[in-house]
């Protein structure tokens, strides 16, 4: 059952970051604050990865998302006219969005609660899991094809954005 240990305390702090940040993103009317809350939320997820002994994923999470959010904020500031103190509701679709995300959330919670009591300890994480991850990406028994497809997709997106920005 629940025990008080450094790991469980860190877990609750990180969970608070993740959920609180996520709530902040959808409730604040200030776009830059929303982006900053997103950083907090994603940082919390990185912390959860650390607790799961997946430091590589944690670091990549921070590296990719924090850098991306700096750009997101820049775009936000550049393309929106009024950032602070937006009073009226712009988006009429929020009730639908609330219902869908509420249902999804309820489904997830139901799934997790159903697993309570049936928890089995997982096998020990191998120490050099980065090396295994790296090998899995470049061997055809592993994930070579998905990896290459993802990189081709990103390359296409990159070329596309360059073409679009040159056209203007």
């Amino acid at each position, binding site marked *: 059952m629940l025990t008080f240990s450094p790991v469980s305390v860190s877990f609750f702090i990180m969970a608070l970051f993740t959920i609180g940040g996520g709530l902040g993103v959808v409730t604040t009317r200030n776009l830059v604050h929303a982006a900053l809350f997103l950083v907090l939320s994603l940082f919390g997820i990185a912390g959860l990865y650390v607790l799961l002994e997946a430091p590589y994923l944690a*670091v990549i999470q*921070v*590296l990719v998302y924090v850098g991306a959010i700096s*750009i997101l904020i820049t775009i936000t500031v550049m393309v929106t006219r009024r950032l602070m103190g937006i009073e009226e509701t712009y988006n009429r679709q929020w009730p639908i969005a609330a219902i869908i995300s509420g249902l999804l959330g309820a489904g997830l919670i139901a799934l997790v609660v159903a697993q309570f009591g049936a928890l089995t300890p997982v096998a020990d994480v191998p120490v050099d899991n980065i090396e295994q991850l790296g090998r899995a990406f470049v061997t055809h028994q592993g994930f070579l094809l998905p990896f290459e497809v993802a990189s081709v997709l990103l390359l296409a997106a990159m070329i596309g954005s360059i073409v679009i920005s040159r056209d203007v």
Partner: protein
Amino acid sequence: MPEALAPILDIATFIRETLLSLFETLGASPELANGLVTFIGAFLIANFVLLILVVNIWMERKVMARLQDRIGPNRVGPWGLFQTVADLGKLLSKEIIIPSQADLIPFLLAPLLAVMSVIGIWAVIPFAETAIGTDVSIGVLYFMAVSSFGIMAILMAGWSSNNKYALLGAFRAVAMLVSYEVPIILTLMVPVLLTGSMRMNEIVMAQNIWFIFMVPLAGIIFYISQVAEVGRQPFDLLEAESEIVAGYHIEYSGFAFAIFYAAEWAHGFAICALFVTLFLGGWQGPFVDQIPTLGFIYFLGKTFLVYIIQIWMRATVPRLRIDQIMDFCWKLLIPVSLALVVLIALTEGIITTLAEQGILTAPFLANYFSTATAADMLPRTFVLLTINAFITIVTLFLLARRGRAERERFEAMRQSMAPIEAGTD
């Protein structure tokens, strides 16, 4: 070697074990004692970073003064050593003025985030073989992740100040820092490729021959991009005084400004430490195997030497325009470092496969670095140096051709302008 000297020879392990046994005799569980010792270590490293700033800033002012034929600070303390302390006292006693339309929480959070991102870097830097904050298996990547918080801090400061100069500075920061992360990551891959590990201590141990002698091009590109990442001259676009007054920290005063200032200087020193770790052999030096404490001296000595080079650059090179800086990054540094990484990966792949099949000798095997002596590694160094020289020559050739074309274009333009200038029309 006499037994009584053992604590001095490996001072980090000695302190660590003394503290551990002290806590355990006081009744702490091994887990708690370990946690406390880790906490004390983190406290010591963080304070070391902030205290060495006093020396850094003094050194910067003194060296720069000498380069510019001045004397520099010489009033407070011996050789003006306590000038920084006096400056800090002044900044501490000043009021933190918050602009009326500022976004309060990001405004106050930004300096803390900036200094946090810099202190975080030191967690993975090995001072000596036994003195490293935490030897995580992803040390190199961790450094990149932590420093990306610095960009966030600059952006938060620039946006929340509600000042157009601050915002311009922050936008420049995003454009420049995000671009210069690319060559940094690419050149970081070179030591990782050679070592086969992202662990900082393993990278240091692999450097029987310093990587700067094996892959000088990667080292130089890494250093230049890091200087840009700190935003120092000649890359100080973020706070270009003559263009945007002071950039992102224009609205900061008193201690909030002092924290930003500290973060920037500490970042400047941290990249030197990182460069030393990755390319100049870190704590490696003569007799370091027998006396690990010597590692501190070698490491700090090398770091200060690299720091002097940074000051030298700062004092001599003028600031570039933003388009020049971006061109330099995207059109020169990134293609060159890409070519370097691909070629080195290919050659390493070929020679290690050949060595595994017994065609080449043992020093060409992968992961042979840490066990080999420097003389063993010479052939491999030669191969890597050849690749570097090849890329350098091709780059210089292309640059020269580009320069010649540019000059011809300019000459043609001048000739067509000549009648107008002469007033004959």
